[in-house]
């Protein structure tokens, strides 16, 4: 799978943000971040271009349903979507270890960027509790869920594109 279509990205990411803000239950005190998982999966399988576009749409969807100022999650997701692919994924793209390792690191990077943005905007979020009580459990939960999301996205792309793999 090289990537996933833009027309798939918009409804899928918007629906995921909607689910994340309504149905998805908390696990280990945190809510699984489906949108982040999809962005990482798209970036790994579709390249940096897909990562950036999916990051933009996913972040914007999260911003819509969040009390945070519009742009916080968009900015963080675009950067995560781009950074995930910096190490060039082709070498590992067939291995399941790459998505697992990538999402674990990406969760920390995403939370790090979000905290920096919140603090820049004057919101009071402390580094210690944010990293230990939110980022760490989120990274564990997201890593556990990644295989499901990764293979779901691969399956969906093949289904929609009749086996062909397209750019975003």
């Amino acid at each position, binding site marked *: 799978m090289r990537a996933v279509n833009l027309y798939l990205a918009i409804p899928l990411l918007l629906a995921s943000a909607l689910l994340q803000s309504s149905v998805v239950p908390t696990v280990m005190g945190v809510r699984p971040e489906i949108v982040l998982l999809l962005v990482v999966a798209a970036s790994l399988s579709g390249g940096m271009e897909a990562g950036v576009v999916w990051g933009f749409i996913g972040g914007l969807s999260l911003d819509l349903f969040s009390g945070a100022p519009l*742009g916080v999650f968009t900015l963080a997701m675009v950067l995560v979507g781009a950074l995930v692919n910096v190490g060039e994924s082709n070498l590992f793209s067939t291995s399941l270890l790459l998505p697992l390792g990538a999402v674990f690191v990406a969760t920390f990077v995403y939370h790090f960027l*979000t905290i920096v943005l919140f603090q820049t905007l004057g919101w009071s979020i402390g580094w210690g509790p944010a990293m230990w*009580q939110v980022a760490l459990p989120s990274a564990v939960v997201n890593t556990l869920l990644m295989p499901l999301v990764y293979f779901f996205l691969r399956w969906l792309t093949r289904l929609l594109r009749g086996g062909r793999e397209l750019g975003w």
Partner: protein
Amino acid sequence: MKREIESYVSRFTFHVSCLSKSQSRALILAVVFVVLSLAALLLQHGRPLPGESLILRLLAPVQGMLQRAGRGLGGLWPDLREASKLREENEALRAEVELLKARIVGLQEVAIENQSLREQLGFQQAHPTYDLLPAQVIGRDPSNFLRFVFINKGSNDGVHEGAVVVAQESLLVGRVVRLGTNYAQVMLISDASSSVNGLIQSSRAEGVVNGQLTGRLVMRYIPQGELVQKGDIVLTSGLGGNFPKNLIIGQVTAVRQRDIELFQEADVAPAVNLGKLEIVFVIRDFTPTYLE
């Protein structure tokens, strides 16, 4: 300055030209999206952008339906897992109900006596009755850092920005921070950026109740020497004008008092389970005072 900018642009162009077509396109897209995000952050000044409100207005009913469906499904697993525990709890609760029934009878007598004394004295009630608008919680903040909820009532129903939200008439939940025609976003008192002026019911000691990332509450700035104990009830003090007086915030679960510090701190358990809110009430006739 101009020379520096030209130098940056030419270096950027050189680096982009060294990348493959796909990589350079991705880089340009990333720059465009980052600039757009920064522009949104700088331009909105705390207000939702026009398109944002429209999308939320359309999606609010869908979010409500999903939330209801999720509650139904989410309740199944814990119910099965805790069946035996529930049986024991049920028996304990039955015994407690009997005890409380007896107490209610006694309290009813006191209430009648109290009412008659008030009438004799022409006494104004300390707790005014508020105009409460019931609302359903239809969504939560997707971020693990923030504690906000969406409710299915908005400006069309008389909700205003800053309106106070409670559960069961007097248990403080939060306040409205963002408003649409058919939805409102409520910042819970457990959000890390929430702070409420509170007081300990028994000792009248004042402090500020802040939310934590974990969803717990901490009461800070309680003067040394004030008596604070586990189990004390914490109420809103009304100071600052953002919240009405005497709403119940929670109960003290632990006190941290060190002689070398200026103030004491207390952990406070919210009076209502803020993670499982379903129905809340918006106080429509309380307008917060914003001190300039």
